[in-house]
């Protein structure tokens, strides 16, 4: 895959995006099917078909052709939109993605094309379009892909001037195929422009010097012509209508917005590989460290200090700007769930509405990339275990249609994602019994409700009485928690019997830089992510209480368990008299971490561990402090969970 032609890579990427959009379009169609919406689907398919054929995705183009046929019929009003068509279309779209992922024609694509599922899909398409099934897997249907979609209508004449970018040929662009595709829209008259052609001795054979002027007569809208050139966006392209025919019937207001959209897309945004952004982030990290060092050295010199302040301001600005580049609206993930909910509704026989809110909330791309899987798990769980069947809901006096609400909002340096259902709620007693049965809880333990709810994230835990294909295998929620841990987030669960469950994920907005609290333990300095810190208190020996084998701390009449970091790290106990406790929260509980001193706050660039330390529990990575020393960043959740688990293990022995 390394030596893949960049133009083909760009096609695959763009087609992928287009097909993702197609899913939304199709789902929208189910709710409201106006002609504009249908046209948009048709155009999408047409674009993928045309450019697919051009970039060597013949199988994809052939399949799409039949799919497009179906929507041609819908457009003409000969086929109506119903649940069956949407089902079929969604499956066809999935098949297109699979074909696209084959990376072009080849044995893999052929195998997919000939798979029974694909043939069934085609047969279903033929059934609704009324075409004969004889040409299911014909190899030489190249003419098909550019087949003119002739319709009775007013033909318009267009003047197209097309000059490819000089390096386009090197990138695999094929002007001949583009022109051939134009030919599919209607009769063309092509003339080449050779004015840019240099003399023979200056000619570089790999460069493109030609331009073309094409006269095209077609009844297709301007957008259809633009669609032909969609992957030639570096080219100089002008499409003008020759006003000889009587004014066109096509609605110009429909054509205009789409063409301006295209322009906006190509002109005002830049596609950058994520690795380059990571590189900038790395450099910026170094800069933040160097600046912290400079800041420490400058305190003696007033003149230098003012310069350092200036630099600090600039670095902060640069950091914010760079971080914002990496930010994406969370909508990107939310969009996928409409399909998940639709498919699951059918599978489980439950009617469920998905409501999403706060999709514009922005979050780091790294977080987004890893978030979609845990969210799918949680939505499945809500629908499978949470929402009751229609009959049970009616009996409970609830509307038979269940609701899952997915919302996001930013709070300080964190993004809160909430999944809320109006289902049966968690059964605390059932969880308790199950936990005892699984050995996750001792029978005499008296956990609080929120502690019980946390147990659903324990490995191997599942309260579903029956295992369905959707959930109940007890792997899901465990995986959710480890993903959220890896993202340095936390999970909170709230539930009321009969009314529903709310799960809240708290995630850092970015993973690259965190605000940290510097603490000292002996001679070592550690960083605790500020997002996890609730408050800091003095450790007064008198406040320590030993209760039920657990070390508790009384803070304003509340008992808070605490961990001595010396003990956790296997170090000799501290002999310092005045120590401090950092109260952190994890898994919805409060926990004190005892340290020797609190040094202050700083902004920290996280460097992940090498292979040698990746498995050391309790740390998220390391950072370099202003004085050049290395400090470890504490990962509160894994540290606390491990230490508390060890303590429980040790208890029976004592």
């Amino acid at each position, binding site marked *: 895959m390394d030596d893949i032609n960049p133009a083909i890579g760009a096609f695959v990427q763009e087609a992928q995006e287009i097909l993702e959009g197609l899913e939304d379009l199709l789902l929208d169609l189910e709710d409201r099917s106006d002609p504009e919406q249908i046209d948009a689907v048709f155009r999408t398919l047409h674009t993928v078909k045309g450019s697919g054929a051009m970039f060597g995705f013949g199988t994809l183009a052939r399949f799409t052709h039949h799919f497009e046929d179906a929507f041609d019929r819908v457009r003409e009003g000969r086929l109506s939109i119903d649940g069956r068509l949407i089902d079929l279309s969604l499956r066809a779209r999935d098949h297109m993605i699979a074909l696209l992922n084959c990376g072009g024609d080849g044995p893999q694509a052929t195998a997919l094309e000939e798979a029974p599922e694909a043939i069934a899909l085609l047969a279903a398409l033929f059934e609704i379009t009324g075409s004969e099934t004889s040409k299911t897997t014909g190899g030489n249907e190249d003419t098909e892909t550019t087949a003119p979609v002739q319709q009775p209508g007013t033909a318009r004449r267009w003047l197209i001037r097309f000059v490819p970018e000089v390096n386009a040929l090197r990138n695999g662009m094929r002007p001949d195929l583009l022109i051939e595709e134009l030919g599919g829209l209607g009769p063309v008259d092509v003339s080449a422009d050779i004015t840019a052609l240099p003399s023979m001795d200056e000619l570089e054979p790999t460069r493109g010097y030609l331009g073309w002027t094409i006269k095209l007569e077609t009844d297709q809208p301007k957008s259809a012509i633009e669609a032909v050139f969609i992957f030639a966006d570096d080219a100089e392209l002008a499409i003008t209508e020759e006003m000889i025919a009587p004014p066109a019937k096509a609605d110009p207001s429909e054509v205009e917005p789409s063409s301006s959209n295209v322009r906006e897309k190509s002109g005002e945004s830049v596609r950058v590989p994520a690795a380059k952004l990571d590189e900038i982030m790395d450099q910026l990290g*170094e800069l933040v460290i160097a600046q912290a060092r400079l800041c420490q050295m400058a305190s003696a010199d007033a003149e230098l200090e003012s310069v350092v302040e200036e630099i600090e301001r600039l670095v902060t600005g640069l950091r914010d700007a760079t971080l914002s580049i990496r930010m994406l609206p969370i909508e990107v993930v939310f969009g996928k769930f409409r399909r998940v909910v639709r498919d699951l509704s059918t599978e489980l026989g439950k009617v469920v509405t998905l409501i999403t809110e706060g999709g514009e909330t922005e979050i780091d791309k790294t977080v987004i990339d890893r978030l979609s899987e845990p969210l799918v798990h949680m939505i499945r769980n809500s629908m499978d275990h949470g929402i009751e069947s229609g009959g049970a809901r009616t009996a409970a006096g609830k509307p038979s249609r269940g609701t899952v609400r997915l919302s996001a909002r930013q709070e300080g340096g964190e993004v809160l994602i909430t999944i809320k259902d109006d289902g049966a709620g968690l059964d605390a007693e059932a969880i308790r019994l199950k936990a005892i049965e699984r050995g996750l809880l001792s029978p005499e333990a008296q956990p609080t409700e929120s502690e019980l709810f946390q147990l659903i994230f324990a490995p191997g835990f599942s309260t579903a009485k029956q295992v369905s294909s959707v959930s109940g295998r007890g792997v899901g929620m465990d995986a959710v928690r480890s993903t959220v841990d890896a993202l340095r987030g936390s999970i909170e669960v709230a539930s009321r019997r009969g009314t529903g469950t709310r799960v809240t994920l708290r995630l850092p907005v970015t993973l690259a830089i965190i605000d940290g609290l510097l603490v000292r333990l002996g001679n070592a300095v550690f960083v605790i992510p500020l997002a996890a810190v609730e408050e800091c208190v003095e450790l007064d020996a008198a406040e320590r209480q030993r209760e039920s084998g657990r070390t508790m701390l009384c803070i304003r009449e509340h008992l808070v368990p605490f961990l001595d970091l010396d003990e956790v*790290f296997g170090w000799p106990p501290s002999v310092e008299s005045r120590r401090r406790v950092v109260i952190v929260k994890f898994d919805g509980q409060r926990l004190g971490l005892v340290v020797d001193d609190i040094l202050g706050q700083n902004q920290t660039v996280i460097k992940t561990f*090498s292979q040698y*330390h990746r498995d050391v529990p*309790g740390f998220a990575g*390391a950072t370099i402090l202003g004085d050049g*020393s290395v400090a470890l960043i504490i990962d509160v959740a894994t540290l606390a969970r491990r230490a508390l688990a060890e303590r429980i293990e040790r208890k029976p022995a004592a």
Partner: protein
Amino acid sequence: MTKASRQSSSYEMVLIFRLSGEAFAISVSRVHEILDPIPVTEVPNATAFAPALVNVRGAIVPLIDIRQRLRMQPERPSNSTRLVVLELPVAGIPTRLAIMTDAVEEVAETDISALEPIPDLGSRWPEQYVSGVIRHGSDLAIFLDTENLFCPDPERAA
């Protein structure tokens, strides 16, 4: 020397360093730099093989204690203690790491094809971490198998 043996001989530069008096050799192509001792940060609960981190010019680098794998006793730092920073693939990933040595001696040219299997002292050195011995003046130097020696997971080291 026959023609054939001359063809198979390959000269390579090696760095010779000492651990508890013993001479060890490592290919110079793996050596990134040699540093005077710098502050180290202990990683709690880490293995004795990779106990700490050091800051090498802004990069956080794991400090590896190869004595662990060579079954050698720890030694106190002295005036001649040096940190050797290496850059080599570890389990396929290019990795920078540092090792603490008692002294760095010299860079010497050696004929790798004349590498000899470890003679009778074979039992002393775990064989998976040692490629053989090379002549180093009147002395012998242990040529280390960096691939296995720095493998994070000793189970995987063949």
